């Protein structure tokens, strides 16, 4: 037998037997590390290393082979005497196999050397482990970041919260294979499944149930890496019956806890370690933010909707529910004002003209609030307008009676009102100026106030009809009374009498009646504007709580139109001129009208003009002399109209307090006197700063 020399032996690695299983990742890594470590050693000495897996098969070998191939005996190899040293490998407390060193007997310190080399290889392995761990950490952080980025991108798109939450549970189950997840959200006393990826049916449950409930109230995460063996009641958290590992993560922001994210696996797939938990915490926080955002968003929408409703109601009020007083009708002064409030309701009013000397007023109030009431109001008003037209053609009568109109309207709207579970109080008033009569149909509306000019007394227009909407077949009846010059009618909605002051008292019928009694001498526009100021003072608020509607009608006599010859006089702002003014009035009243004016009327005119001019001097020009006052007079329609022009401060009748007829006052009667001495008075200022007081007196 010839011993081949070492140099001539082919260097070859022993092939791994085909039946041997592939090395595990760690074994492979160790093998690579070992290779790196032993390479210089093999080069300098005649040694070879064989690495055996824990199972016994050879994983790899390096260097010339003595052919022994087996760990157990340190038998002699083909090279003759050879030393065999073995060293067990351990990694992280687990056996990783054995390394065999095959070398010539002369190799010093073989065992120690082998151990050192193996230790070095293990060292490499561990270093590699650390690196891997670091990489894993980084990628876990990256995953979390990714999750955050993805979901943030979704936030900025207008995805609805439900689908965002679903995305979150989908990401939650992506942490491993065969993972299930439920996202519970608080709703009242319950937790409800807002999103889920799981195999069982879920129903809302009380928020105190089971572990889920406990986590919700604690607000702290809980992990079970061996759920089956933990203490819990299997009846609660029913979907977790077969769970092997479970993680509960509460959805918490700085503000509140909104629910719980539950993630579990039924097999032994992975541990809920810190890396996984970091991801789940991130997802839970995202979910909590989605819920919080959504709630805030809905709150602001609610507020915006409310504002919008008020705006819509206001528009409805302006366009559909109010009307324009007729302005071509001689002998009457009308003002109407409707104010919408925070709560829109169904106040409405309108006017219908029947020629030059007759017009109707409809004023009504729908029971109910909000836009629905406003729309019912608009529809009812519309019904009135159509009623007139319909009855005109069906009866061949240009002026259907008030009671027929109201009966017609009631018949048409009752069914709809019943559907709305509402009704309408209304007053239909027909002013016939030729006959000087007022005919009205009152249907449960507020008591219209009638101020009698002759004696300053007040009476009320009351009817005994039902409101509209109670009975389709109801027949309505009208009442008629006569109107005298100077009479004032005040219609209003209950928003006026039901205003409250901070103490809770109602403004009430009495205060309103007293107010009208004291202010009926003013122009209708002023009556209303004063009343509104009064109400604001009473309630100490600028805005009104309820809708308000007021219509004031004053039965005067005359239009204000120029016709015929004109007389003029210039005065200066000196009280001594009052005498001249009076003489002018006397002359004019003799010269101008068709037939001379009665003495009494002339007296009244003189008084009115004196008061007006004195006002101009004392207030308009603040008592300063030397300013210009112009007065003109002309006849018209059987009477006279006087115009007093000045360029001082305009007299604002609204700012003058009402006179008190007792012995305390020294003045304040001026405007009252003027109003009562002539048939028509108006105050105006043009855009050239010229103020005009217009007085008209009829001769009869």
């Amino acid at each position, binding site marked *: 037998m010839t011993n081949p020399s070492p140099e001539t032996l082919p260097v070859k690695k022993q092939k791994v037997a085909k039946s041997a299983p592939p090395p595990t990742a760690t074994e492979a890594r160790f093998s690579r590390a070992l290779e790196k470590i032993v390479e210089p050693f093999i080069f300098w000495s005649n040694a070879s290393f064989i690495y055996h897996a824990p199972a016994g098969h050879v994983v790899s070998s390096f260097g010339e082979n003595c052919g022994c191939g087996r760990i157990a005996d340190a038998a002699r190899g083909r090279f003759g005497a050879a030393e065999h040293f073995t060293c067990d490998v351990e990694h992280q407390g687990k056996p990783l196999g054995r390394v065999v060193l095959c070398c010539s007997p002369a190799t010093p310190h073989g065992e120690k050397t082998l151990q050192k080399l193996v230790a070095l290889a293990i060292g490499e392995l561990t270093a590699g482990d650390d690196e891997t761990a670091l990489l894993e950490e980084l990628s876990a952080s990256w995953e979390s970041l990714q999750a955050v980025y993805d979901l943030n991108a979704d936030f900025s798109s207008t995805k609805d919260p439900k689908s965002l939450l679903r995305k979150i549970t989908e990401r939650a189950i992506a942490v491993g294979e065969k993972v299930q997840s439920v996202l519970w959200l608080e709703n009242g006393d319950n937790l409800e499944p807002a999103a889920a990826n799981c195999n069982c049916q879920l129903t809302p449950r009380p928020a105190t149930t089971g572990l889920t409930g406990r986590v919700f109230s604690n607000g702290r995460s809980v992990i079970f890496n061996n759920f089956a063996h933990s203490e819990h009641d299997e009846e609660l958290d029913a979907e977790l019956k077969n769970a092997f590992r479970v993680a509960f993560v509460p959805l918490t922001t700085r503000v509140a806890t909104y629910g719980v994210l539950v993630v579990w696996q039924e097999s032994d797939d992975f541990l809920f370690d810190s890396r996984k938990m970091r991801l789940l915490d991130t997802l839970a926080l995202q979910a909590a933010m989605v819920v919080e955002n959504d709630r805030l968003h809905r709150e602001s929408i609610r507020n915006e909707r409310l504002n919008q409703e008020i705006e819509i109601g206001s528009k409805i009020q302006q366009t559909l529910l109010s009307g324009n007083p007729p302005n071509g009708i001689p002998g009457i002064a009308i003002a109407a004002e409707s104010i919408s409030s925070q709560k829109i309701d169904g106040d409405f009013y309108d006017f219908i003209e029947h020629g030059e000397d007759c017009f109707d007023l409809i004023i009504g109030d729908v029971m109910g609030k909000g836009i629905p009431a406003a729309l019912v109001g608009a529809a009812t008003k519309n019904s009135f307008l159509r009623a007139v037209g319909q009855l005109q053609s069906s009866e061949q009568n240009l002026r259907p009676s008030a009671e027929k109109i109201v009966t017609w309207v009631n018949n048409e709207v009752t069914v709809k009102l019943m559907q709305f579970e509402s009704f309408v109080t209304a007053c239909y008033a027909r002013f016939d100026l030729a006959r000087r009569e007022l005919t009205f149909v009152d249907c449960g509306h507020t008591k219209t106030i009638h101020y009698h000019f002759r004696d300053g007394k007040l009476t009320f227009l009351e009817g005994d009809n039902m409101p509209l909407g109670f009975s389709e077949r109801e027949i309505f009846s009208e009442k008629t009374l006569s109107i005298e010059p100077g009479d004032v009618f005040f219609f209003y909605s209950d928003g006026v009498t039901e205003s409250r002051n901070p103490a809770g008292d109602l403004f009430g019928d009495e205060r309103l009646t007293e107010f009208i009694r004291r202010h009926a001498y003013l122009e209708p526009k002023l009556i209303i504007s004063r009343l509104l100021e009064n109400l604001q003072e009473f309630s100490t608020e600028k805005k009104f709580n309820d809708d308000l509607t007021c219509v004031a009608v004053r039965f005067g006599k005359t239009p204000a139109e120029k016709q015929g010859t004109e007389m003029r006089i210039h005065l200066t702002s000196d*009280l001594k001129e009052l005498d001249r003014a009076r003489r002018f009035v006397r002359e004019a009243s003799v010269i101008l009208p068709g037939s001379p004016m009665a003495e009494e009327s002339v007296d009244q005119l003189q008084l009115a003009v004196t008061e007006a001019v*004195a006002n101009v001097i004392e207030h308009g020009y603040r008592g300063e002399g030397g300013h210009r006052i112009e007065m003109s007079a002309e006849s018209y329609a059987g009477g006279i109209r006087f115009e007093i022009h000045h360029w001082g401060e305009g007299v604002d009748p609204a700012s003058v307090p009402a006179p008190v*007829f007792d012995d305390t006052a*020294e003045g304040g*009667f001026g405007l009252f006197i003027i109003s009562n001495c002539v048939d028509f008075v108006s105050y105006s200022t043009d855009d050239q700063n010229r103020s005009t007081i217009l007085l008209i007196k009829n001769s009869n």
Partner: protein
Amino acid sequence: MKLKQEKVNDITVVTLRGEVLDASVVSDFKSEITPILQSGYHVVFDMSNIQFVDSSGVGAILSCLRTLNAGGGDLKICSLTKPVKALFELVRMHKIFDIFESKDLAVGSFS
């Protein structure tokens, strides 16, 4: 404003002359009437000459009434001409003052 003053029994009767009691003469009237009111107790204004009164005139007469009432006395009015009477009724002074057709009636009413 010219004022004529006389005493009847213990009543001071003041006759207002001058035809007009309006804003232009009111301050003169006030300064002239003040000493009369101070020395008087019960007073009657004879308005037979006055053809025209305006609101300042009414105010001035009211202020005379207050002054006399403060001293425990009273003011009565008589002989209003038609337009002045109309004004007094318009501003309801007929409810505040005792108004008489003649001087004698006015004076007599004090006893």
